[in-house]
């Protein structure tokens, strides 16, 4: 069972903020979900190879493309949806005083 302190820690890790007014409701929902997934603990899985993704062929490894330029980056197009840019750079609040 998670506590309010656990939820605050998870929110910190996930860069989310749980509003104080919603904290109890969020805690209850998360604990309900964790109760559901707790069923995994009784599954007979000893020695089983994890299935990471169903396309995985362990003999193949990750496909690598030929090491040559295939795409060019259009910075202006890519930054068109950015909230704040200047001279091709993304603007963020000051990090170092």
């Amino acid at each position, binding site marked *: 069972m*998670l506590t309010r302190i*656990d*939820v605050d820690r*998870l*929110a*910190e*890790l*996930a*860069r*989310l*903020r*749980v*509003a104080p007014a*919603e904290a109890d409701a*969020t805690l209850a*929902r*998360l604990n*309900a*979900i*964790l109760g*559901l*997934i*707790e*069923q*995994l*603990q009784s*599954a*007979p*899985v000893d020695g*089983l*190879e*994890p*299935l*990471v*993704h*169903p*396309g995985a062929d362990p003999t193949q490894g*990750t*496909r690598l*493309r030929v090491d040559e330029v295939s795409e060019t980056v*259009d910075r202006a*197009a*890519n*930054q*068109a*949806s*950015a*909230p*704040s840019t200047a001279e091709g750079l*993304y603007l*963020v*609040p*000051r*990090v170092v005083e």
Partner: protein
Amino acid sequence: MKDWTEAGVATLAAALAARQVSAEELANAFLQRMAASPLNAFLDRQAEHTLAQARACDERLARGTARALEGVPIAHKDVLVTRDWVTSAGSQMLANYRSPFDATVVERLTQAGMVTLGKLNCDEFAMGSTNENSAYGAVRNPWDHAAIPGGSSGGSAAAVAAGLTPAATGTDTGGSIRQPAAFCGITGIKPSYGRASRYGLIAYASSLDQAGPMARSAHDCALLLSVMCGFDPRDATSLELPHEDFAAALATPFTAGQTQRPLSGLRIGLPEEFFQSGVSADVEQAVRAALDQLSALGAQCVSVRLPRTALAIPAYYVIAPAEASSNLSRFDGVRYGHRAKGVRDLHDLYSRSRSEGFGAEVQRRILIGTYVLSHGYYDAYYLRAQQVRRLIANDFDQAFAHCDLIAGPVAPTVAWDLGAHRDDPLADYLADIFTLPASLAGLPGLSMPVGFGAGRRPVGLQLIGPKLQEARLLRVAHQYQCVTDWHQQRPAQAGLVSEHGH
């Protein structure tokens, strides 16, 4: 003028090729229906872009350089990025987001001549089974406006069912094509993992996400799937397979020469776990009647076991949130998406932008994902869920030793009322039970309408095939649709006043 908005993809492609209707006339007819619809199925429309595409198609048709689906309209689920339409993924986080490129499946359908009608509402970042998690409001089920359309591809399913578009793309992570297709009485197929490119599909759970078509018949889905699938070097999980024409063998009997009983020799596995308590009587009755029809076509039903079916729920609700928490870390208020105002510092920018931009269910799944991946819990949850995933895949392997495909209900009930699960947070999760196993195993799954249940809400039959056997599923569904007319039924209350002359 004939009302072409009642026609499907195959009929429209033939009518366009025969110059019985122009692409521009068709686009206008569907745009008018969209504008008059109360279903909230569409999020973005750009009539000028649609009509420009249609006019270009008409020029090709006139020149005799038409492509396979030249001029046939389609609409895309909003988690597939598009250059000329806003892509919000049903989220405030991406309100007004414009992608600099088209998703590969969108590009492939456009390259085949299809005209984009707009973008379709869905659960936020495809997380949900009801479409109630969209930041832009729920979609209504065209069969009953009090009911959910299903999710997460609810806008896609509702729009096809209501005749706002002849076809739509959907995406399926745990059932998001099959369940809304069932709830809205249309046909949809999730191909095997790796068949359709995920490039430009805004990632939810990368080891599960697949795109697929949703339309009015298996024949239409076969035409669309043939275009959507294919190797894409931009998706590391894309399978390198030769092109497959899924429509080519639809009418071929399963055993050569058996034209009267075209499914002779086909063994359909019925998992005991899909027919136990929890399946409502109306759904079971419609599914059993469909199985009787398949038997009359020559198929033989055999009993099989998928003993770990129930474990698919906890496995999925560990794996999908874990992958989501990682994928959604890219939304930081810096490069794209919502950015909070008046922030103190960079940390404050991240956490406030994310908590303002994401809806409640997305934030819950990120928190669960963060928890199961955190130090000390990884083995107990994520690794263990992947081992259970192996068990489920092994169960399918064993079942397919005794049958050629598996059939059962798509969902335990028909569509429920909007808001019905508001106070029961796990009810939506538990209702995913019959679609999650095929997702976890990466297998193809098809949903087709087979009748109506309580409140005259549609019931879907699910067909699950061995890996890469999409053609078999489509063939069986097509044979069923050749002798039944459930797929041709239309909702009475489409909520439209027809403006088309007759």
